[in-house]
C-alpha cells in the first residue's frame, strides 16, 4: 500500500448553534493512500460534506487528529491554509462552482492567477486542462452558455489545473442527468488512472462506486459496513 495521504484519526465535528448540538462526525478514523480513488457514500446528513471540508481545510475538527499531505490543517492559519489549498487541493462542489461573469477559460485560470506563472504558461495549462475534460472548444463560453455537465467539467479542469495532489469532490454529479454524470465520473477515473491523482469523491450515486477503487459508507457520523449488501 502506498503512503497515506490522508490520515483521519478519531475525528469529531460537533456543530453548536445556541443550545442545539449536532454531532456531524463522531470519532471517525480512516486512511487514504496516494493514488487511491475513494468514494464516500451515505444518506443525506450523514456527515460526508463535513468530512470533505475538514480534509480540504475549509473547516476545523472539534476533536481527534487529521493529517493531510503531511500537515495538520487544523493547526494552520487561514492564509497558510489558503496557500496550501491552492498548491495541493483541487475542490469541486455540487453546484455554484463557476463565476458567472468569467468565461470557462477565465474560470479555469483563477487558481493560476495566484501563482508566479507567466501569462503564456498559464494559457498553455488552462488549454491543456480544458482539452482533458473535452471542452477546448468552449473556452470562451460563459457558464450560462454551458450545460450542467459541461459546467462541472470546467469545474474539474479548474480543480486540477494547478496540478494538486488531491482532488476532492462533493457530490459533483448530484445535479446531472445520467449521461453527464457518467462523463464526469469518467474524467475523475482518468485523472486518477492516468495522472495518478488521489481522488476523494462524495456521492450517493451508486454508479460512482463502480469507478472508485474503494467505497466507504458513512451514517450518522460514523463509518459503517456496506449496509445494502
Amino acid at each position, binding site marked *: 500500500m502506498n503512503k497515506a495521504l490522508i490520515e483521519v484519526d478519531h475525528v469529531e465535528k460537533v456543530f453548536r448553534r445556541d443550545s442545539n448540538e449536532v454531532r456531524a462526525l463522531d470519532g471517525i478514523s480512516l486512511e487514504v493512500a496516494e493514488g487511491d480513488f475513494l468514494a464516500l457514500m451515505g444518506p443525506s446528513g450523514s456527515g460526508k460534506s463535513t468530512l470533505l*471540508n475538514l480534509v480540504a481545510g475549509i473547516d476545523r475538527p472539534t476533536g481527534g487528529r487529521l493529517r493531510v499531505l503531511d500537515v495538520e490543517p487544523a493547526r494552520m492559519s487561514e492564509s497558510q491554509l*489558503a496557500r496550501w489549498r491552492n498548491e495541493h487541493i483541487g475542490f469541486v462542489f455540487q453546484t455554484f462552482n463557476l463565476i458567472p461573469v468569467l468565461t470557462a477559460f477565465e474560470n479555469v485560470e*483563477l487558481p493560476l492567477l495566484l501563482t508566479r506563472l507567466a501569462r503564456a504558461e498559464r494559457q498553455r495549462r488552462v488549454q491543456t486542462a480544458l482539452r482533458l475534460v473535452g471542452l477546448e472548444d468552449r473556452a470562451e463560453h460563459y457558464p450560462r452558455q454551458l450545460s450542467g455537465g459541461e459546467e462541472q467539467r470546467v469545474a474539474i479542469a479548474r480543480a486540477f489545473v494547478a496540478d494538486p495532489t488531491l482532488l476532492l469532490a462533493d457530490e459533483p454529479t448530484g445535479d446531472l442527468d445520467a449521461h453527464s454524470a457518467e462523463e464526469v465520473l469518467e474524467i475523475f477515473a482518468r485523472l486518477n488512472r492516468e495522472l495518478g491523482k488521489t481522488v476523494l469523491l462524495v456521492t450517493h450515486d451508486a454508479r460512482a462506486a463502480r469507478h472508485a477503487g474503494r467505497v466507504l459508507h458513512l451514517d450518522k457520523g460514523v463509518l459503517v459496513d456496506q449496509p445494502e449488501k
Partner: protein
Amino acid sequence: MGLFEIRNPKSAIRNQLYSLFMKFAGLVLKSTLRNKRRTILTVLGLGASLFLLVTLHTVLYELQATTITAESDLRLITRHAVSIANWLPLAYKEQIRQIPGVKDVMTSHWFGGIYIDERNFFAQFADDADKLFKFYSEWRIDPAQREAFERERTAAVAGVRLFKRFGWKIGDRITLKGTFFPFDAELKLVGSFTSPNLPDEAVLVFHYDYLNEMIVKTMRTRDVAGFYVIQAESLQAVPRIAQAVDGKFRNSTAPTKTETEKAFQLTFSSMLGNVKLFIGAISAVVVFTILLVTAATMAMTIRERTAEVAILKTLGYTSGLVFTLLLAEALSIAMLGGLLGCGGAKLLYSTVDLQQLTGGWIIQLRVQPEGLALGMVLAAVIGTAASAVPAFRACRMPIAEALRHVG
C-alpha cells in the same frame, strides 16, 4: 551588489503589485459589469450627486471670487446704511472727497431697466462718464470709443459679453425700459470694453448726468446718487476712509455704509455667510444620501456573491485578496461616477453659454481643480465606505458557512 540587494526587493514588490493589478483587472472589471443596469444606475446616481457637489463648490467659489486687479482693491463703495434702495444726497460727494486718503469720488446709480424682455437681465449703471475709465482703469476700451462715450450725453458703453449676447454693434440704439424709474433710458452704444474680471464684461454704463436730468424731469426729487464709488490713494488708506466716511454721516438723515468693492459685491449676492452655510448643508445631505444609497447597493451586490467569495477562498484566495478585489470593484464604480460628475460639470460649464442660459444671472462658473479633486476624493471615500463593511463581512465568513448559505 549591496545596492542591488537594497533595491531589488522594492522593485520586485512594485512589479508584483503591477502584475497583480494586471492579473485581476479583468476579474474586477467583469464583476462591475455583472449587473449592468445596477452598475449604470449606481454610476449615474453618484455622477449626478458629484456633479451637484462640484457645481455647489464652483458657485461658492464664484461668489467669493475676488477681482484680481489691484485697482479694485483701491475702490470703496459708500451706500445708504439701510439698503441700496435708499438714495444718498449728491452733496455727500464733495464731503467725501475732502476726507484724507480719498483720491476721487464717482457718482453711481443702479438703473435696473428692462431690455426688450425681463429675461434679458444684466447690470446697468449710470456713472460720472468722465470718471468711469479712470476708476475702472483695468477695463480696456478703444480710446476713440472712450472719447465718444464721454462726449455724448446719451452714450453708453457695455462689456463685450453683452455685445455678444445681444448681437449689438457700435452705433446701435437701445431702450432700457424703466422699472423703478418712471422713464426709459434711450441710449446709443458707442463703445465696448473688456475686463480681467469677467462679470464686469456683462455690465452696461451710461451717463449719470443723463439719468439725473431724467429724474429731475419726471420725479419730484433731484440730485441723488444710488451710491458712491471712492478711489483711495493707497491700500493703507482704505480702512481709514471707510471709518471716516461712515463717521461723518452717522448722525445725518442719510447714514452711510462704506465697504470695499469686493465686500459690496458680496452683499449684492446676498449674505455670503448664510449662502455658504446653506450650500454646505445641501452638500452634506447630498453626500450622506448618496453614501446611504450606494452602501445599500454595494451591500446587496456583495451579499449576492457570498458563494463566489467561498469558491475563490476554496481555490486558495486569501480573505485579504478577496476583500481587496471587492473593494477595487466598488472603487472603480465609484470613481467612474466621480469622473462622470466632475468631468460632466467641467465640460458643461466650459462649453455652455451660462449667461445666455440663465438670462444673465450667472456670468460664468469656473470649475476649480480643488472642486474636481474634492469630487474625486469624495467618490473614493463613498466607494470605500459603502463597500468596506459588507466586503469585510463576506470575506470573514468561514467557507463552510458561506456554502451552506447558498447550498
